[in-house]
């Protein structure tokens, strides 16, 4: 029986583990947190159809309890070495695991919005990120602002930490546009009286039913889209915010007083990714995400034979794309083991 070690117990890790167990392999998942699911645990509802995250989480949990693979919780990989055609994996600085193949499924990190100081995250009271808002969108979430009243005017900023030289991220995080549209609609359902604005550079509705949801946001939910990037936000004495942008379609500057500012934060490669990758001979893209051996035909292969890649450690990815990428990783690992 071949042993496969999977690093990361998020969507990609668990999905790959489940498929490889079904294929008859011995699988061990290494997860640094106490629970599986990774970043999925930060979210409440998924685009484009408002699927409750619990639905996906319970399927992952079912797989963990029913299938015969083991998960080492609160464990991290210290090093990976090759030995006699196998991998020697040192975990949490003490134990050693021996594996025939390794799957890296370490995921992403959310952009730290404090780095865009001009938007005032953690400086002003009513500036929050899309991840913060997601918690408030749960049925018992409290949306009220300073005076204990619901916000009357809310603005979303797209591309926070993405497509931005100043943040050092040139790439597009792919999922924030549709997340903004989804969250704007959810806010509208909770706050029928509020004015809701989205400040965007481009709207990238790349996926199935994304464009339709954007249209619905305009048509049915009266979300106003303004093309222009926010230059700054400043807090007034009553804790409301003055925001400035260019209305690029009119070609004129625009200012607006609002009660709540939501920053649609992008995805970044995990902080330890570059050094961890270098230590086992895997390369990184300029974006910081892990490099695949070929962008078309080997999207699950790293540059090292026997080390495979699954999910958003390779690029920003939606939940849907992550599941598909993980399943294809399992297929590639299985085929590779059979060929050996």
């Amino acid at each position: 029986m071949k042993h496969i070690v999977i690093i990361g117990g998020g969507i990609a890790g668990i999905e790959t583990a489940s498929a490889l167990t079904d294929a008859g392999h011995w699988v061990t998942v290494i997860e640094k947190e106490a629970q599986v699911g990774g970043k999925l645990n930060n979210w409440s509802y998924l685009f484009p159809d408002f699927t409750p995250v619990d639905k996906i989480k319970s399927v992952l949990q079912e797989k963990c309890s029913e299938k015969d693979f083991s998960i080492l919780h609160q464990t991290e990989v210290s090093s990976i070495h090759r030995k006699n055609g196998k991998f020697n994996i040192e975990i949490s600085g003490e134990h050693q695991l021996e594996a025939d193949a390794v799957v890296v499924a370490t995921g992403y990190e959310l952009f730290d919005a404090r780095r865009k100081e001009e938007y005032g995250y953690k400086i002003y009271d009513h500036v929050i990120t899309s991840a913060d808002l997601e918690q408030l969108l749960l049925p018992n979430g409290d949306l009220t602002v300073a005076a204990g009243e619901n916000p009357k005017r809310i603005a979303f900023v797209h591309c926070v930490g993405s497509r931005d030289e100043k943040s050092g991220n040139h790439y597009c995080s792919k999922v924030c546009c549709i997340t903004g549209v989804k969250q704007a609609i959810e806010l509208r359902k909770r706050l029928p009286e509020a004015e809701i604005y989205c400040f965007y550079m481009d709207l990238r509705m790349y996926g199935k039913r994304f464009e339709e949801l954007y249209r619905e946001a305009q048509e049915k939910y009266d979300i106003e889209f303004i093309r222009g990037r926010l230059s700054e936000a400043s807090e007034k004495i009553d804790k409301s915010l003055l925001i400035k942008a260019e209305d690029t379609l009119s070609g004129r500057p625009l200012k607006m007083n609002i009660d709540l500012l939501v920053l649609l934060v992008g995805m970044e490669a995990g902080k330890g990714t570059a050094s961890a990758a270098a230590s086992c001979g895997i390369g990184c893209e300029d974006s910081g995400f892990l490099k695949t051996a070929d962008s078309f035909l080997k999207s699950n292969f790293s540059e090292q034979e026997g080390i495979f890649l699954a999910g958003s450690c390779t690029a920003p990815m939606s939940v849907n794309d992550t599941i598909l990428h993980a399943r294809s990783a399992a297929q590639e690992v299985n085929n590779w083991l059979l060929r050996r």
Partner: protein
Amino acid sequence: MKDFGFTMIKQRTIDYDQFDGRLLNEVLEMEPSFKVCLSCGGCTATCSAVDLVSFNVRRMNLLLRRGETVELESEIKKCMLCGKCMLVCPRGINIRNVIMLIKKSIPKYKTVTL
């Protein structure tokens, strides 16, 4: 009044807090298809008037949404209501009706902005 030679310069910044949305709301209510304008400019590209006068149909949307009623009223007079823009619009907006609605209601809501 005695002219001292001073002029008042109109502020270029759009002050959204001063926005009067009554005309916009009336137009959107009567012609909801207008909500989904993407500002793609297809209408302006095909417009029969643009060759003859400086006119931009796409800007009607913006002027309306920013409450620029004075400019809107003078601009909209240039439309010949031929309807070519409606053939091009990727969102199927009844642009001619939008123009007609604005023409009809603008005298009610015309505001002078400094």
